[in-house]
């Protein structure tokens, strides 16, 4: 796995359309098709991951679109095997930005008289009645995912990222490290701790 370095603040623009002028139009078209295929294959999973991380569908769509645009614009000329970690690195940064803004907004709202903070509101998920009655047999599909999503919110951001990228997106350790901007050892640690926390939380819920 080649080393992938990402600078999401980079403004250097890669002139992909240059190919049409210097006789490499075919290469340019091939690359456009390859990018289309890559994005088509990744967009739904990326959206679901962004949804889980952001807990906001509209913001998740914006984040995915933004990551697509930045990948095409800034890294479209990189080798194809680098696109996936690069894309998730961009998406991760976008998610982090959103979470920071949200934190500031919540802090401001907490000082605003008469405003109820989001944390103070009852969690509709917690108060919802389980239509199947006892949640003691097994957790299936959507229900399991809903529980995991809830527990993921309680993890540290690094643990959550490691879990989402390793487990849900299926990146290997090296790719996850490239996407998270940390060492492979850190990825293993964060992922293991995330799995451990989820395992404990879901066991307690099953009791």
């Amino acid at each position, binding site marked *: 796995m080649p080393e992938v370095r990402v600078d999401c603040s980079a403004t250097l623009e890669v002139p992909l*359309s240059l190919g049409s002028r210097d006789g490499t139009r075919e290469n340019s078209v091939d690359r*456009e098709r390859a990018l289309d295929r890559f*994005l088509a294959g990744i*967009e739904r999973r990326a959206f679901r991951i962004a949804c889980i991380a952001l807990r906001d569908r509209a913001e998740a769509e914006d984040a*995915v679109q933004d990551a697509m645009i930045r990948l095409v614009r800034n890294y479209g000329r990189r080798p194809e095997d680098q696109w996936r970690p690069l894309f998730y690195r961009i998406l991760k940064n976008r998610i982090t930005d959103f979470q920071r803004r949200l934190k500031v907004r919540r802090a401001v709202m907490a000082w605003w008289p008469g405003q109820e903070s989001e944390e103070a509101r009852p969690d509709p998920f917690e108060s919802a009645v389980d239509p199947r009655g006892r949640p003691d047999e097994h957790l299936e599909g959507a229900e*399991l995912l809903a529980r995991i999503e809830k527990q993921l919110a309680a993890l540290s951001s690094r643990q959550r990222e490691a879990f989402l990228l390793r487990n849900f997106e299926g990146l290997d350790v090296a790719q996850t490290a490239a996407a998270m901007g940390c060492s492979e050892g850190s990825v293993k640690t964060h992922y293991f701790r995330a799995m451990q926390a989820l*395992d404990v939380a879901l066991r307690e819920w099953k009791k």
Partner: protein
Amino acid sequence: MNEDMQELERRSRAAFDESVESLDAATRSRLARARAKALEGLKGRRTVGPVLWIPAGAAAAAIVAAMLWQREEGGPATARNEATIGAFEDLDLMAQGDDFDMLAEDPGFYAWTDEQLSDGVG
């Protein structure tokens, strides 16, 4: 990782895959539009590459040389200043990639105008 955790790993991944597969049509459509929009960025982008900087640099050097020559020739100070400002405006324009695209895409037209001008003078 113990067996329970491995089982959780497997089941959570399957649940996630299922949720991706069951995404609603409207969301799928919006994502496809977002992709198309991102790929539009490939079309119509014009950035001056290294090859095109060579004629740009040569042209800029010629303008600077002309400015210096004009300065040597003398003349009213105001006229010289205006010429200098004009030359720098030209440099600004030449720094735009699109101007060089035009030169690169239609060399025949420029050859023809050159010919016409030569005919007119001769």
